[in-house]
């Protein structure tokens, strides 16, 4: 592949910066106020740890850019960044959108004739802010830019909007100090929770959300248990939310999904109910114990924002086999050598919704129920962490300087989506008349399922 002159020039410039000063100056911009989404809090913390592992090459300056930042703090943060004259500006967080910061900062940089390179770690909410990305285009034009997707499928989806050669994959890291396999199942915790020794415990952790299809998971598990008489239990750790299916014209009210789940529970037999356990919200620090006590994590989410799957990464790092939908970032957890330990349930995408193959889900339940004891959980944890650990991510991001490409424009679909987002008031992917997904959704999200 031919490298453009400016890229060669820039790479030479970056390496000379490193050799002259010995260090690359990097300003890390993120929200010092933690995000409302627990998984995003962990992602930002762990990404920062990964960059800090490269401190022999990087001189990091941390810059706060939070939602509802005061004007004074905004200018103070901007000035701190401009005065640092960084070689690279790195956006770690999913919110607020970088355009609101860069519109001020780039004006200042122009005055001192300095153009840094930019690194953006992209999250699942990328497709909710097209307007902002379009507004960012003139600000970073001709700068060296690197975009990180969290998974291969997200990268494929992003190629609709961003030139492919600028996109790379960097998983959201897991800290092995928090999530690792300790060598044995936590029998004491099983006893504490009232789970029997000989039953297979399937666990789900995260928000109980309609797009995560908890209702289908609940009823399919009950059906499978009735059919196979398997000695198994399913445990849900988390709170219901009210995200609903906005693009299918199904908004949700507080508690609505909770009562829907309770209605399914009401219709179950006493025996079925006895094998379902809702724990409600549990703090993050308790999750390792749940993972060590359970036998398999199951998550059949088809959420639009499922770019990665932080809970799946943490569970796998704790040595748990996984049953996941073959959807978006989940696909990436079936690492080579873990084909048996990670079962993927096929998903079909249709304008009316996303269809999960529930027969395949039942087969996956049976597979895990019969085989989980023979799995080497140490191997699962090791293989997982080879890809997702903070150390590996540190290694990936250490190659940043060689990956920069000059940014000129987004692809035309970004502009189309931006206009649609503006005129439909954020119902970018919705066909409201038919209460279905529109053609744009089918075009963009087809990358989240296995190509047929």
């Amino acid at each position, binding site marked *: 592949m031919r490298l453009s002159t400016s890229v060669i020039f820039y790479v030479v410039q970056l390496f000379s910066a490193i050799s002259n000063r010995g260090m690359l100056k990097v300003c890390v911009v993120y929200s010092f106020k933690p995000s*409302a989404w627990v998984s995003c809090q962990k992602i930002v913390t762990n990404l920062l740890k990964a960059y800090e592992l490269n401190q022999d090459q990087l001189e990091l300056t941390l810059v706060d850019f939070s939602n509802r930042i005061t004007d004074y703090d905004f200018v103070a943060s901007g000035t701190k960044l401009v005065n640092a004259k960084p070689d690279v500006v790195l956006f770690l967080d999913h919110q607020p959108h970088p355009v609101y910061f860069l519109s001020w900062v780039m004006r200042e940089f122009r005055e001192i004739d300095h153009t840094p390179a930019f690194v953006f770690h992209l999250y699942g909410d990328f497709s909710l802010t097209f307007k902002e990305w379009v507004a960012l285009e003139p600000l970073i034009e001709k700068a060296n830019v690197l975009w990180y997707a969290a998974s291969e499928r997200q990268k494929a989806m992003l190629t609709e909007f961003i030139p492919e050669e600028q996109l790379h994959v960097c998983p959201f890291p897991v800290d092995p100090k928090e999530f690792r396999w300790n060598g044995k199942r936590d029998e004491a915790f099983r006893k504490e929770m009232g789970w029997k020794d000989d039953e297979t415990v399937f666990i789900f952790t995260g928000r109980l959300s309609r797009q995560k299809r908890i209702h289908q998971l609940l009823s399919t598990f009950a059906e499978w248990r009735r059919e196979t008489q398997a000695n198994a239990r399913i445990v849900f750790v988390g709170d219901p939310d009210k995200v609903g299916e906005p693009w299918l014209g199904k908004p949700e*009210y507080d*508690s609505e999904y909770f009562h829907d789940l309770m209605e399914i529970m009401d219709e179950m037999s006493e025996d079925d109910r006895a094998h379902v356990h809702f724990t409600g919200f549990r703090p993050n620090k308790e999750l390792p114990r749940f993972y060590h006590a359970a036998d398999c994590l199951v998550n059949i989410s088809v959420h639009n924002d499922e770019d990665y799957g932080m809970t799946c990464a943490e569970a796998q790092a704790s040595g748990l086999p996984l049953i996941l939908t073959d959807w978006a970032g989940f696909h990436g957890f079936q690492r080579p050598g873990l084909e048996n330990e990670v079962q993927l349930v096929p998903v079909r995408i249709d304008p009316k919704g996303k269809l999960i193959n529930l027969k395949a889900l039942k087969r996956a339940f049976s597979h895990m129920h019969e085989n989980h004891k023979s799995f080497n959980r140490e191997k699962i944890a090791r293989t997982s962490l080879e890809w997702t650990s903070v150390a590996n991510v540190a290694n990936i991001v250490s190659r940043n300087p060689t990956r920069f490409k000059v940014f000129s424009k987004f692809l035309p679909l970004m502009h189309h989506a931006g206009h649609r987002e503006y005129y439909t008031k954020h119902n970018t992917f919705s066909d409201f008349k038919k209460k279905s997904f529109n053609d744009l959704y089918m075009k963009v999200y087809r990358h989240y399922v296995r190509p047929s």
Partner: protein
Amino acid sequence: MFDHLKHLSKQANFFLGNRWNSPLHTAAATEMMSCLWPSSDDFYHPLNPMFTPFFAETRQVTAYDVVLLRDGAHTLLDFYMRFPAPKKSRTLFLVNADLYFLVPEPWRPQTLAYRIDYKYEAPTKKLVFYGLISESFMAWNRFRHHIDKWLKQFSPDAEVSAYLAIRNEPMNHNWDDKTLAFEVTAGIQNYFKNKIEFLNFDNLKKQGSNPEATFVSLDLLRTAVGFCAMENMFMGQAIKVHPRGIYQAFNGEKIGEWPLSFGHKMSIYQGECPDSDYSTFFFMKKMNAYPLTPKLLDTLAARLTVV
């Protein structure tokens, strides 16, 4: 009876009161909802939770099979004054058990009571007080004398946050300077050693992921709301919610339970309330220009048992 209630819940239409295009969305109802916000936010429950200010005409009272009234004493009394008897309405109402004594005799055959069973544990070291600061809803003249005694259940060393929502007075339009918010703040601050951290609504919601926090409502008399949207939100996040004050007058027969979250539930009661104070309140209310005058609030407060 409980089976009948479950049956009704399955066929009931969920009322979306705060939707701008709701036919029941009158200007008066909107004003009242904004005075009660965020306690008046919509949430879903199969028993169709709503506020009585949305009922402007008799025919609207008959439109639903079942309604869980979220009203506090204020709007509930107003409703019964406007509709002293059910007439043709066959709607099954549920009223907060602590306010059941306000239900007039003709309404009682079709009115059940509910009580929220808070998953109560001892208060934690982090307390979050929240409430609507409005003279219409806070019997401060009485409460100020009890606040020290009431606060003694909490440790003075606790970390304290407060979400004090200063709202318009719904009926009382006098333009005097209001000092209530300062007095409430001082009342709480005087007891605790740590400085109060003041929250806005967004920050209050973020406290939801803090398992160390206990949420404490300042609407002890249930004058503002019987079933508060904030309480529902906190319970949904399995957060510790401190029980509110309970009136002693109710002793109905429990007919069933309804889960509200994985940790909290609602008990449903049926039965006669031995104490019928409606006529007294009705008389007092007629004698006064506004629904809940300080005197009336005082009378309510006198019935309160502080938990």
